[in-house]
């Protein structure tokens, strides 16, 4: 489903260059559950952003279902993000002015889903992450774990084929972390491809495959 070939991501900081990713190769099958581990600053988020079409590689090829994604026009990348990719950010990125329900409805609003259906699907997604009773709370009225789950509900509500989660349990205690992983793995069992970045060996251990990064590259070679 996904194929990265010789991916580089280079940031220019002042006069020097930072290689957040250096020559990365990766293949991911449809329906796979993959965990990405590695020390802070090793390039995990950068990798996930490129996979999620939120960022473009400086060099290299990214095939999504056989299509070269880096060369796609802006609108088609938007379309891909809208229908194929669900992203759970490391720092949630919820709109503070909207309720949990409103935040989950947001991707559907721009996809042109009619209002009633939007309501219904958002409610169902919130129920799936166990937040049906918090639907009308704003983010600042929710705990960190609850916000994380709202972000997950928003990521899955469009029923994407690829689910990317950047440290979804980073801010959670053990039991909340377990709940969140349950939700994500449930989606994975439903056929969605799941890629999780994590520092937690327990979380990583639940994945079928684990890759480790260090200094912008995979440690055990291409996997």
């Amino acid at each position: 489903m996904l194929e990265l070939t010789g991916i580089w991501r280079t940031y220019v900081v002042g006069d020097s260059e930072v290689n957040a990713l250096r020559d990365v190769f990766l293949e991911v099958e449809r329906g796979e559950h993959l965990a990405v581990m590695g020390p802070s600053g090793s390039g995990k988020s950068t990798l996930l952003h490129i996979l999620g079409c939120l960022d473009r590689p400086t060099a290299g090829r990214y095939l999504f279902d056989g299509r070269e994604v880096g060369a796609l026009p802006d609108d088609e990348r938007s379309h891909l993000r809208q229908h194929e990719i669900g992203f759970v950010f490391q720092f949630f990125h919820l709109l503070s002015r909207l309720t949990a329900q409103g935040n989950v409805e947001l991707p559907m609003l721009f996809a042109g889903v009619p209002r009633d259906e939007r309501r219904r699907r958002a409610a169902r997604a919130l129920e799936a992450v166990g937040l049906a009773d918090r639907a009308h709370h704003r983010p600042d009225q929710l705990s960190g774990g609850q916000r994380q789950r709202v972000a997950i509900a928003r990521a899955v509500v469009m029923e994407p084929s690829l689910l990317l989660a950047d440290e979804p349990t980073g801010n959670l205690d053990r039991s909340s972390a377990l709940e969140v992983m349950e939700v994500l793995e449930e989606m994975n069992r439903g056929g969605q491809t799941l890629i999780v970045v994590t520092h937690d060996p327990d979380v990583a251990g639940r994945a079928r495959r684990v890759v480790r990064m260090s200094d912008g590259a995979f440690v055990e070679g291409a996997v």
Partner: protein
Amino acid sequence: MSPLELIGFAFGALRGHRLRTVLSVAGVAVGIAAVVALTALGEGARRYVVQEFTSLGSNLLIIMPGKVETTGAMPFGGVAHDLTIEDAQAIAQRVGGVVRTAPVAAATETVQAGDRGRSLAILGTTAEYSQVRQVTVAAGRFLPSGEAHQSGAELVLGSKAARELFGAANPLGKTVRVGPYRFRVVGVLAPKGRSLGFDFDDLAFVPVRTAMRIFDRSSLFRVLVEMRSTDGLDQAKEDVLGLLRERHRADDVTIVTQGAVLSAFSAILAVLTAALVAIASVSLTVAGIGIMNVMLISVTERRAEIGLLKALGARNRQVLGAFLTEAVVLSSLGGLVGLGVGALVVRLFVGIYPTFPATPPVWAISLSIAVSVLVGGLFGVWPARRATRLDPVTALTGR
């Protein structure tokens, strides 16, 4: 995404950031209010001047003693001859096309009614004056006509003067004193406002010879000449000058007409109009820059939101639509509030100076609204457009 949903989203954003919305609307409103209030005052000043000089009547000649048109001294080094009541009578009898003349003597003196006194402009004139200047009497009558009455002791009060001197009491038939002289109030004028430099509501009329005697004047202040028609005004002016040259054996009076006054003041009017345009453009620019700053700040602040919307799959067009809607709603709202505040300021000003015709010109209102919406839309969308060009992560993390 339907237009209705777009507007809903924009309003949600405005409601969600209440403080920023209030500040933005206030910023826009201050600029627009300034445009409205300042141009209203400027336009008021222009109208005031025009009004003052068109209230004369276009068929009127005004004769003033002394020659103001020549630069040097009087001919033969002499002083100006007195302008007299007899001159006025001669003009009425001997110049063709004259309907009537009214001699005017002027002084400022305290008028005493019982224990109340008030300093008033006192005009000594004849019954003809009320026709020449179209003065309306609200109660009683104007000065009596006829030669015999030119030395009488009648007095007509302006509406405000009557109120100040007599309060609610009826002044008709009452006695007032000017210095040691006693007058009987025979009439009160209807309100008229200012004209030719006099406040017609706050003055008194007395018979002309009486005025010249008690104020010790040998020359009239003015002679007003009403012509049958506006045509031949220049000829009449020449005739009057000729007649007075013959009577005074010198060219020692000045005659002005409304046309002459207006053309003399056309330079002032042009300056006033230019000042008005300058005021409007300065305040429009200030308003425009204010709106621009507000929009630039509020949109730049929300780069992260643009990044998020894009990350969730919103097209660039949709994001721009949302921000354009928001910007237009914001600046229109500010424009409306500004118009309201500006109108209120003008209303207050007119409340304090009722005779000042302050109204904001229509072009200033429409221009200020157009500028607020245009500038608001432009600077609401331009930074948003820059943000949509970025990859979602770059916009989102603000790096």
